[in-house]
């Protein structure tokens, strides 16, 4: 099979990004169609990805360095969906900023393509460069706003992100130096034969790689950029960061650690690292989120805490062994549930901040009166983040806690449950504020939501509810996608 057919979903998006730039160069006055071009590129890309899956064309291309399997198709579709949602969420904001629209959408598309490449990469060089393709546009987009804070956010993200990339590269270089290969399955073979002689180096390499991806996942102690970047970056970009690059980092970690470093002598060590990071991230994230008064900072810390929930899954997978698919599919289900939920929260925040012109949580008081539907949508999304049924977030947490319990990580489950209680305080505080009855409030005049935002908010909230009531289809898809690791 032609290897370029394997990466056709990504190529479609990259070509779309190029067309947007060229179109803008030829017709600079006519920029109404730019977001629709971006959406069309994403639609074409998804149809390519799905057609690969439907035809059962699971192959490795480029001599094994890139793989189209159920796992990569699953993540490609998720990332394309996230990209499309962020395009919808951005339309209104980009129109108001009113400059460099084509570049904005082109960068968003390339970042999405980078995430999709990450999903299928099986070679350290490909993984690293795909990670950069997704990161560099995000650095630029984080600094897109006109105010100083956005500039600070972009610069901070760039500098700290470069350090994380350097650590990651160091870890990869150690792996390469030891095994003589950048190809993940070959590293696995080498480690399977020689792990016991080189345990300390392998643990050091794993730690460095975890540090590099931990930055993208926003795990403590690599989280220091999160609140500042989320606060300063334009909200649609923050939504993309919090969902897209986090999910991609988990996808790659699954790939590297469960395909490459899954030797038994090693996996218990890094599973312990993930378990400890999960516990710290949840606790630190939730405690700091409690005291925030700015909604975007609060969401930043909440995303740190949620990264901890993801990491529980990673810790569980390594320990479980035979129940492998269960735990891995828990992570994948969590990705989908979290993507819908967190996008819904961010999009609602975009709509509300646009009206209130404030990110202060206290300004949300009495919002249910002026914008009942919006308040309801945000309320449902926050309930899903807390993990209360019937929402997608509930099943995601249940699933991942169950996986951890099966893996004898009872202490981690207890920490996680206590943290969920803690998280309920600040999530539900917003819900309570919104539905409180107040007389005279700045936000009390009814206001309209832009159509594009309303549309995508509706879709994401619907997703949260539908998967809350009927989680089975996603669970079975997630199990199938996760099954690719169980053979190796």
């Amino acid at each position, binding site marked *: 099979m032609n*290897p*370029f057919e394997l*990466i056709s979903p990504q*190529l479609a998006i*990259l070509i779309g*990004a*190029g067309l947007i*730039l060229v179109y803008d160069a030829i017709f600079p006055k006519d920029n109404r169609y730019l977001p629709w071009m971006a959406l069309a590129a994403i639609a074409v890309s998804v149809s390519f990805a799905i057609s690969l899956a439907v035809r059962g064309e699971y192959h490795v*291309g*480029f*001599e*094994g*360095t*890139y793989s189209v399997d159920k796992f990569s198709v699953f993540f490609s579709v998720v990332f394309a969906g996230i990209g499309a949602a962020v395009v919808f969420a951005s339309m209104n904001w980009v129109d108001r900023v009113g*400059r*460099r629209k084509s*570049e904005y959408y*082109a*960068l968003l598309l*390339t970042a999405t*393509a*980078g995430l999709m*490449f990450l999903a299928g*990469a099986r*070679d350290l*060089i*490909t993984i690293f*460069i*795909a990670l*950069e*393709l997704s990161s*560099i*546009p995000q*650095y*630029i987009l984080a*600094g*897109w706003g006109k105010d100083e804070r956005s500039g600070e956010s972009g610069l901070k993200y760039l500098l700290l992100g470069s350090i994380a990339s350097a650590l990651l590269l160091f870890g990869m270089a150690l792996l390469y*130096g*030891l*095994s*003589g290969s950048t190809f993940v399955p070959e590293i696995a073979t080498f480690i399977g034969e*020689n792990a016991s*002689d*080189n345990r*300390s*180096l392998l643990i*050091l390499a794993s730690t460095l790689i975890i540090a590099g991806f931990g930055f993208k996942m926003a795990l403590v102690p690599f989280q220091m950029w999160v609140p500042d970047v989320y606060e300063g970056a334009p909200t649609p970009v923050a939504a993309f960061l919090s969902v897209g690059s986090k999910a991609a980092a988990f996808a790659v970690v699954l790939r590297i650690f469960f395909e490459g470093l899954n030797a038994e002598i090693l996996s218990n060590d890094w599973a312990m690292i993930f378990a400890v990071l999960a516990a710290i991230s949840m606790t630190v994230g939730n405690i700091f989120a409690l005291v925030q008064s700015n909604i975007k900072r609060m969401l930043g810390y909440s995303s740190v805490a949620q990264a901890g929930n993801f990491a529980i899954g990673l810790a569980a997978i390594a320990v479980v062994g035979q129940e492998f698919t269960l735990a891995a599919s828990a992570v994948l289900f969590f990705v989908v549930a979290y993507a819908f939920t967190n996008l819904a929260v961010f999009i609602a925040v975009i709509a509300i901040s646009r009206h209130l012109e404030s990110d202060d949580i206290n300004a949300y008081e009495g919002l249910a009166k002026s914008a009942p539907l919006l308040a309801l949508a945000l309320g449902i999304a926050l309930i899903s983040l807390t993990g209360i049924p019937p929402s997608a977030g509930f099943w995601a947490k249940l699933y991942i806690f169950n996986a951890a319990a099966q893996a004898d990580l009872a202490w981690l489950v207890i920490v996680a449950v206590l943290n969920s209680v803690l998280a309920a305080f600040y999530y539900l505080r917003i819900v309570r504020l919104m539905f409180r009855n107040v007389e005279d409030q700045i936000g009390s005049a009814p206001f309209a939501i832009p159509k594009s935002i309303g549309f995508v908010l509706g879709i994401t909230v619907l997703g949260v509810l539908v998967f809350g009531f009927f989680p089975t289809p996603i669970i079975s898809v997630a199990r199938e996608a996760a099954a690719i690791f169980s053979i190796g």
Partner: protein
Amino acid sequence: MITEILWWFFAIAIVGTAAGVVFSRSVVHAAIFLILSLAGVGGLYIFLTVEFVALVQFLIYGGAVTVLILLALMMTRLDATGAPDKLTGPQAPFGALVGITLLLTLVGVSLATAWPGDVDDLPTNITIEQIGDVMFTSYGAPFIIASALLLVAFIGAIVFAKQEDEV
């Protein structure tokens, strides 16, 4: 024999010029020392018969990167007195601690590891043609990604450089 003498010549030159980068007072001198040091490393690559890496080292590091550094220096406003800015703050001891711990860990772990590849086993005489072949087969995907990455970096540079003039 002659190779060995030349090798030592290059090795001493690299270390000497690298020290020059660190200790010279003027940034422009430091940049020139950097060019010499990087070119010296390129010379060492020729001894290893990896011409392509040597070529890349000369062109990209010796040429492009240092020219970029010099251009960047030209753009920055130099302090008339030439006094260097203070680069250390109250966090310096912690930074040193982290750095030293990392160094010790790396050295310790490296010594404890049975590295498989001895220098003699390295494949030599890799031609540029072979590299080209691999670039379009095994590394076809990263090659495409790299091209997109360069485009993105370029767009980013333009966006930020043209920040002022609002249209």
